[in-house]
């Protein structure tokens, strides 16, 4: 499911890291897949991206698809614009989503819908892929909706 952009245009657009560390993640989002790091040494998930597994110190990490659903670990409703692109935005919501299917790693996104909606830690959420396929650089943002 795609969606219209949650935030007004003009914020910095994400590009894969030049060293390639998170390229698979960003390419996966364009395919509506949530790919995160998983260690071939100990089989545990890891996020954010790093070159080594923090548990077993293996450099042998792969990107693997995980279920794009989680629970709200924390949240914030932002009111004050700190970027000109958001001057007319009004309040918006950022959530920190915990992914139980991936060892509980966390990922940041917006919570789509009414920005005044109640924000509930522990609420189940699912991914919404916000495509910017005509943009330069091409990218997809990973957003969340209450399930």
């Amino acid at each position, binding site marked *: 499911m795609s969606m219209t952009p949650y935030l007004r245009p003009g914020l910095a*657009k994400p590009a894969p890291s030049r060293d390639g560390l998170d390229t698979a993640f960003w390419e996966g989002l364009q395919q509506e897949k949530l790919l995160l790091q998983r260690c071939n040494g100990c089989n545990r998930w890891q996020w954010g991206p790093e070159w080594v597994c*923090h548990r077993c110190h293996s450099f042998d990490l792969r990107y693997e698809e995980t279920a794009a659903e989680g629970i709200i*670990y924390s949240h*914030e409703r*932002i009111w004050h614009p700190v*970027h000109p692109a958001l001057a007319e935005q009004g309040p918006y919501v*950022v959530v920190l989503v915990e992914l139980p299917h991936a060892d509980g790693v966390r990922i940041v996104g917006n919570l789509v819908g009414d920005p005044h909606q109640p924000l509930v830690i522990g609420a189940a959420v699912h991914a919404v892929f916000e495509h910017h396929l005509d943009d330069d650089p091409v990218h997809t943002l990973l957003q969340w909706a209450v399930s």
Partner: protein
Amino acid sequence: MTTDRTLRGKAAVVGVAETEYYKWGRSPDPEFKLAIAAVLGACANAGIDPADVDGFSSYSNDRSDASRLSAALGCKQLSFASMQWGGGGGGGSGAVANAAAAIATGQAECVVVFRALAQGQFGRFGQGPRSRMVSGTAAHTLPYGLMSAAHSFAMKVNRFMHDHGVKQEALRAISLASYAHAQQNPRAVMHGRPLDEAAYDASRWIVEPFHLFDCCQENDGAAAMVLVSAERAKDFDHNPCYVLAAVSGSQHRAGAPVHNTPEYASSGFTTVAPRLYRMAQLGPSDVDVLQSYENFTGGVMMSIVEHGFCSAEEVNDFLTLENLSAPSGTLPLNTSGGNLAECYMHGLGLNIEAVRQIWGESTCQVPNAEVAMVGSGPMVTPVSSCIFGSEATL
């Protein structure tokens, strides 16, 4: 025993100074000139020839280069130049630790800890970056509008408040205490601008749970303090203000990218505070007055808990204006007005205020203050803390 592996009582502060403090962009002077003025002021306050300063210690990638300062001031030599790594204001007490360590280990004789900021000259901390593209760790937050310090920390505080039932009034009390103390401090940018409960409650949200008055100012200015060995400190005009402990650090994987630190709802002091107290050979009940870095009030609230002044479940009862007010509160807090209401000099003003409390020179003096603590830069990594004490505490 490891009694020799300590900073306790090895170094002392003998002079402090700050420039005039300005709202951001209002300084008539560029940043480096402010730094020089603060260093000269601290030397004058100590009664030491600036040429005898042989070390500089700062933090948060201070732009006022130690070698340039040493040259500008005609210092006889440079023996020590140190920058605490990362952490923004989290380096404030770390810079004190580095200076004290240099003195204690014979690397330097007279070290100035300083911080200079001209946000008008170099850009404001409170604004998001303006680049067209972003990659690396920031790419995973910035396109979602998570782009300022307030945004980075509000989710930690929301989680802590949720887990422990903390009410907004606890954050409000921290803000009101800073503003109340600033009314007694002519140096404070918010001197003459008192704050009451109604004005706090009516103030706009920056990001929930931070109202405007939960957020630090953005300022221009500079601050400095002069440290020498404990032996030498006795020769100066001020009664020595000893460094009883100064430590920095963070928890397991505090720097895990994209908000993945395991101990998320934290100010970052859970491993630092025990080391601080061990070095000082003191506990929270020994602390007479606390200067706790307010980037945002929620960070102060968690710092107070993690330094053992109350439990998380006691926050609503403990964090009241009465308890936090000098001179007679249970834990007088941010007695200069702090980052919220005196000046956001990246927290170094808090260290100076702690020294003034030990000297009996605060504008909100706590009677007979013998032990003053500083907590620097909650919620960043690394954070740092220090404890200053009078002669009687050695």
